């Protein structure tokens, strides 16, 4: 059955991708998942220089969700291209690299090099709540966001350019429009929502970083709403992210306006969930007698 979708000029064999930071560099889950079956793999956020990340505890559980403050620990651009990319290249799936910089220059440099290295997509992380500089500040100021995307756009020739929006704004429509006008090929949302938990016995924050990002089923209704608003505001494809645990959740995002989806926290609960979701979407499409996934995207009957 035809489950192909297009993110800009990038053709995916199916709409199921892994969410950045939840699937390592692919290798960690290759024992459980045939990576060839995935629509795309979005790897952990990469920065110009290696980052060591935040002290522990970095994660804790919350009702139907979890907090994380990894602090973007990553091997850095050089080692990623040398050690991680070749491995991913061995599989018949698209590779999208999530990037984060402290300055526009860094974002530009990262995208230049990765585009040159032939990655299929670049996901601009302008919404990471867990690093002091950069990240979210780019994602919550329209002018800065427009300038950032404009700059990066020039250096991205082959790869598809996806802007991952911050959920931490009052009006996601405006930011979506800004990202589209500035030249993004697609949008992805949502990233984690800044949140916090306290151990009442010790009076200490449950994360060393105090604040972390909330992910998991708890945020799904917020993500669905934002994907719906964003997809109505722009013409470029939207990638839906947030609390997707099964095929029905993925389809819910597509009905809300998503062309594809990213699976994050669910990988931790079931390492084979991505495959289960692909199969579930196939089953649904067959059961409903659909011909392709275009019939799903934005198919919410809101009248």
């Amino acid at each position, binding site marked *: 059955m035809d489950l192909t979708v297009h993110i800009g000029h990038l053709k995916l064999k199916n709409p199921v991708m892994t969410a950045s*930071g*939840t*699937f*390592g560099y692919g290798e*960690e*889950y290759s*024992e*459980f998942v045939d990576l060839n079956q995935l629509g795309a793999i979005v790897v*952990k956020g990469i920065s110009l220089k290696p980052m*060591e*990340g935040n*002290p*522990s*505890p*970095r*994660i*804790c*559980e919350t*009702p*139907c*969700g*979890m907090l*994380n403050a*990894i602090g973007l*620990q990553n091997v850095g651009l050089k080692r990623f291209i040398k050690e991680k990319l070749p491995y991913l290249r061995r599989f018949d799936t698209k590779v999208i690299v999530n990037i984060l910089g402290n300055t526009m220059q860094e974002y530009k440099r990262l995208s230049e090099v990765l585009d040159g290295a032939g990655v299929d997509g670049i996901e601009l992380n302008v919404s990471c709540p867990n690093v002091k500089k950069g990240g979210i500040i780019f994602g919550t100021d329209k002018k800065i966001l427009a300038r950032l995307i404009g700059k990066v756009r020039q250096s991205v020739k082959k790869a598809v350019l996806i802007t991952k929006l911050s959920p931490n704004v009052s009006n996601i429509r405006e930011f979506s429009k800004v990202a589209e006008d500035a030249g993004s090929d697609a949008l992805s949302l949502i990233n984690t929502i800044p949140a916090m938990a306290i151990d009442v016995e010790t009076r200490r924050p449950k994360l060393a970083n105090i604040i972390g990002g909330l992910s*998991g*089923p708890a945020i799904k209704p917020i993500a669905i709403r934002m994907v719906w608003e964003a997809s109505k505001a722009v013409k470029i494809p939207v990638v839906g992210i947030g609390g997707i*645990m099964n095929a029905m959740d993925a389809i819910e995002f597509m009905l809300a306006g998503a062309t594809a989806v990213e699976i994050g*926290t669910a*990988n*931790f*609960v*079931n*390492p*084979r969930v991505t495959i289960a979701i692909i199969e579930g979407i196939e089953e649904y499409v067959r059961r409903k007698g659909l011909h392709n996934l275009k019939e799903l995207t934005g198919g919410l009957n809101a009248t």
Partner: protein
Amino acid sequence: MSRYFKAEVISNLTLNNNSNLLTIAPLQTIIDPEPGQFYMIDVGNTYDPLLKRPFSLFRKIPEGIQFLYRVIGRGTMLMKELKSREIINVLGPFGNKYPEPESDKIPLLIAGGIGIASLFSLAEALSKKAYILYGVRNKDELLMLDGLKGLTDKLIISTDDGSIGEKGMISDVLNEFLIHHSSLITHYLLYACGPKPMLEAVSRIAREKGVKGYMSVEENMACGVGACLGCTIKTIDGYKRVCKEGPVFLIEEIIW
């Protein structure tokens, strides 16, 4: 042989007011676990709690795998409710293992509280050779006493309240022990597992006395497979993942 498998609950025995023994039978052939390795276990089948919980291999027995766990929060409270014949999802075995001691070494196993869970199978593997220093809060918290006596004739127990064995913390007992046996100090090899404060104390003692060894550490975990980077601890070579490079580390590499 996959590290993601379904297993049937054989039994889930309450050992005392806060500790349980869970025995599961995998429904498929699994990879043989080594002492020190751990599994990620489903504690419920709703999204609350969401994540699997990590538990060390307690024992591999013919019927399956056993876990010795303490009930401390929402997940383990639900785990306590697991009934025989229920089917649960399990991930593992994960992580490295307790390295075997060189032939000239005398293993000193130091367990604090539920830390005995991961050291028990090591003691089994070491067959009699090992000293076991086992500290608990009080008599009632003492687990698997008979089993331990069968594994070594060099079992030293301590309780915070002196209700059984020596009075005081097991780290102090270790300190005393090393002082009295200082002649053999270069021959001892430590294997420690227990709460953070105890592990810190053991590290300090090991440094002072110049004794080598290993410890199994804990951090909150999400994936268990090295993907989320949520379980890191600080080492002399930077952050390392407890679930992948650990849970067993050289005592001297950990920065507290």
